[in-house]
Structures are given as structure tokens and as C-alpha cells.
């Protein structure tokens, strides 16, 4: 600590660091034991209980947290699960566009998403909800049906509108979080720190798109189904009692790949790219097609767009 830095009351700068460390350690174990006794979360380790907010962790602490998580996942699933923490790609704001004139409602995206992002399987949490809408009504959500299950899609007189997290520029979910466990990253992805989320579900109430989902029970996912390529803020296996959401496949897109839902779409309805890149597909869509935002009147300012490609 430098002389110029103001003394934090909690950091105990007067004390020698070793003493501070041992006292903190002791307190940590004691607090964790009490917390375990009170909350019944006997699986919660002292380190996890004392882990700071992800955004406030030092680089070393992030590595420690990741190492701990990887160890826990290995014990739980019996295989190596890599937990990444790739930062946003500089000069990138992700945008997504979905062609309503092409989507046929086959739900390939819904299930590819579940597979990629390690959602609970029983009951299955799905980050994408495909709405069947009536052509006569247009985008009228009062006439939306999400449980449609005919032999073949598209059904006559209907069109299909997949809804997932719209990665808003003004995300109401972030605004209401009482603990700051969810935020918008520099590349426009709204993420959740599952280790900081307290499960109050305010964000679910605030989201006008129904894009957030809660782990009411211990998430169930067979070891063989776990996707081992994960990101701390994305698809790593979640604990019970936290909220989760679409992250544009943060573990893929920050490595330059397309999201899983886009790659599986048989009709090519889904377009993804960097809004700041004038040459990108997404910019072409925004500049040349008829585009709208879902519930634009709420001023959430989504980076997810719907368009008519035909």
C-alpha cells in the first residue's frame, strides 16, 4: 500500500499483514461455520462464502476462484471443466438480428442453447422462448403461444418469434439488482455473477422480455452432457437459487465464434456481429432492412433486433 492511498477502515492498514491474514482466516472459517449452520448451505465452502464480487476481485483472486471452481466441477462431474474469464474484445459491441420472415419455429436454437450453456435438464431451463404468433395479428403478444407442438412447422397463418435476452443498453434488470450481481459488460453483454447473486429475483420481475430464469432446485445435468468449455460469467454450471440468462454465448463469442443458436439455425434467420464494425452482417441488416426492437416503447434500448429479410 502506498503512502498516498487513503486508509480503508476495513483493510486494517495499521496491522502487520500476516496478523491481518490470520485473523481474517479465522474470522472467515468462523463466519462460514455460522452461516452454514444458519442457512443450511453446508456445501458452501469458506472461500466461496467470503468470495468478493467478481468485478472487485484482483487478478490473482480471479485465478484462485477459477481454480476452486474447476476443482469443484471436476469432483462433481468427474471430468475437466474449463472456466474461462476472457474479457471483452476491445472495440466490440455485440448485436444480434433475427429475421422474422425466415424463422419457421423449429426450436433447434432452443435446444442447441441448452446443450451449449449447461442449463438444468429436469426441469429444463430454456433461455430462448419461441413464440408462435398470428399473421393476422402481427407482433401482438396477447396472441402468442409458446407451447405449440404441431407435426410440422411453420403452421399456416402463423409466424414465429424467438425471444431471448435482448442485451439492453439500459437493462432494467441491472438497475433493480440490490447487490450488484448483474451488470452490462463493455461489449454489451449483460452478465450475472452466480456467486454474488442472492436469488431475490427482482431482475426477473423487472425484465420485460421474460429472459431471466431461476434455478428453483439444484440444477440437474448429467456429467456426460456438461459442456466443458465455459466462462465464469456465462455457461459454467450454476448453483441452486441463482438467476441465469442468455449471454450471447459469451464463452464462444469472446473467442470470435458465433453463438450456438445461430450456428444451428437451419433457415439462417439469425445474424450476429460487431455493431461497431461497418462491414459486419449486423450493420448491413440495420442499414438496409426493416428493423424493429421488441417493446421499444419501454426504452430498454435492446441490442437485439428483429427484421424482415424478404
Amino acid at each position, binding site marked *: 500500500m502506498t503512502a498516498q492511498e487513503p486508509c480503508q477502515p476495513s483493510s486494517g492498514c495499521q496491522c502487520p499483514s500476516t496478523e491481518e491474514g490470520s485473523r481474517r482466516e479465522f474470522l472467515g472459517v468462523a463466519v462460514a461455520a455460522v452461516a452454514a449452520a444458519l442457512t443450511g448451505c453446508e456445501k458452501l465452502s469458506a472461500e466461496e462464502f467470503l468470495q468478493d464480487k467478481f468485478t472487485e476481485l484482483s487478478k490473482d483472486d480471479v485465478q484462485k476462484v477459477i481454480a476452486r471452481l474447476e476443482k469443484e466441477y471436476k469432483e462433481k462431474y468427474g471430468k475437466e471443466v474449463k472456466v474461462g474469464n476472457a474479457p471483452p474484445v476491445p472495440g466490440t459491441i455485440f448485436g444480434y438480428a433475427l429475421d422474422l*420472415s*425466415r424463422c419457421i419455429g423449429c426450436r433447434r436454437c432452443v435446444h442447441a442453447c441448452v446443450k451449449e450453456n449447461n442449463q438444468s435438464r429436469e426441469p429444463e431451463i430454456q433461455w430462448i422462448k419461441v413464440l408462435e404468433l398470428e399473421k393476422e395479428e402481427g407482433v401482438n403478444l396477447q396472441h402468442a403461444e409458446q*407451447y405449440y407442438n404441431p407435426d410440422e412447422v411453420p*403452421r399456416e397463418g402463423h409466424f414465429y418469434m424467438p425471444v431471448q435476452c435482448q442485451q439492453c443498453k439500459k437493462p432494467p434488470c441491472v438497475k433493480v439488482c440490490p447487490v450488484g450481481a448483474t451488470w452490462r459488460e463493455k461489449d454489451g453483454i449483460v452478465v450475472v455473477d452466480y456467486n454474488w447473486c442472492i436469488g431475490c429475483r427482482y431482475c426477473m420481475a423487472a425484465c420485460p422480455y421474460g429472459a431471466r430464469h431461476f434455478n428453483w432446485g439444484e440444477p440437474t445435468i448429467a456429467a456426460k452432457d456438461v459442456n466443458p468449455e465455459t466462462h465464469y460469467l456465462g455457461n459454467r454450471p450454476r448453483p441452486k437459487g441463482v438467476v441465469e440468462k442468455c449471454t450471447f454465448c459469451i464463452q464462444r463469442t469472446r473467442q470470435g465464434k458465433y453463438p450456438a443458436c445461430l450456428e444451428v439455425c437451419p433457415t439462417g434467420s439469425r445474424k450476429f456481429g460487431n455493431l461497431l464494425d461497418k462491414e459486419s*452482417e449486423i450493420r448491413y441488416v440495420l442499414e*438496409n432492412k426493416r428493423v424493429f426492437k421488441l417493446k421499444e416503447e419501454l426504452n430498454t434500448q435492446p441490442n437485439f433486433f428483429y427484421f424482415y429479410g424478404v
Partner: protein
Amino acid sequence: MTQTPRPSILPGLFACVLALAATAVTAEEHKKPHAAAVEVPKDQVQVPKPPFTEGIFPCSQCHDPSAMAPNQKRRVLKDMHTEISLHHGPDTRWCLDCHDAFSRDNLHLANGKLVSFNTSYQLCGQCHGDKLRDWRVGVHGKRTGMWNGAKQYLLCVHCHNPHSPHFKPLKPMPPPARPEAIQLKNGGAK
């Protein structure tokens, strides 16, 4: 309710290639999207091999001009290629409007210029110019690979059978569980 295809897809269909039966999708050719204009001529886009029915190409293995003179009379085929039923464009259209009678392993444009099966999008683009334009920039059809780098492209015929180009309906994957069903499984609503 009847299960007919959506009419709004119709304008999205690619046209004019006649002898390709779309079966398998093979695809491993990469291309830098932004470098495209430099690497390949403007009317050329690198694409995977066309999805031929196995054993059907090259056409010249049967259509040997020395053994069989091409019959250019407009007719319904009775001996060969009977599995092909043409649902594409006007009734008067037939095989040799797109396939070349004298260079069997090629297609031809309206002006007679030969086009290989690997660049059949040029033929499709004669009628569906707006789709070709969107396809070149990656908005019509699917791109896979990297959003900021190498992408894999598909030919029109990988998704649209040129003889019957309407995108075929699919069986939807299972719907989400209803809350009641989840409650029932857990012993009913509390």
C-alpha cells in the same frame, strides 16, 4: 389446421439450377469476409462443393456426345431422371434452360455463358438478384465460423433443392414444460 408451407418464404427461394438433387451438405471452405473483394473476383464467392446425389456427377459420364446426340426437344423425361419433379418457376421451364446441352458438366446463364456447378449462385442470381446481394454480404443464408474472421458459406442449393426450392417444413423440437406439468411431477401444486 392444415400444415402448408408459409407463403412468405416463397420469395426467398433461389432459382434456375436444374440438375442438382440436394442431399448431403459438405462444407469446409473458408473465406475472409472483408478480404473477399481482394482475394476473389467480384462475381466469385468461395463456397463448398455442391450437394450432388452420389455418383451423378460428372454428368458427362452418361451424357457422352459421341455416343448420344443431345435431344433439345422440350419434353417430359420418361427414361431417366424421373425422380425429379420440377416445381420452380413457370410451367414452360425445363432442363436445358439451365443445364447446358453441349457442355454437360456445366450450367449456362440466360446469355449462354457457361457456369460451373460450384458457382451456381450466379445462375440463381439472374432471377433472384436481391437474394444474391444479401447472400454475398452474409444476410441471406447461414454463415458459420467466426464473426470476426473465417466464415463457412453455403451454396443456394445446399438449402434449396433447385428443382423444388421451397424450404421444406420441419418437425419442431419439443416445447418447454408447462408449469403444471412440473408441479405434477413434484407432487402437485402446494
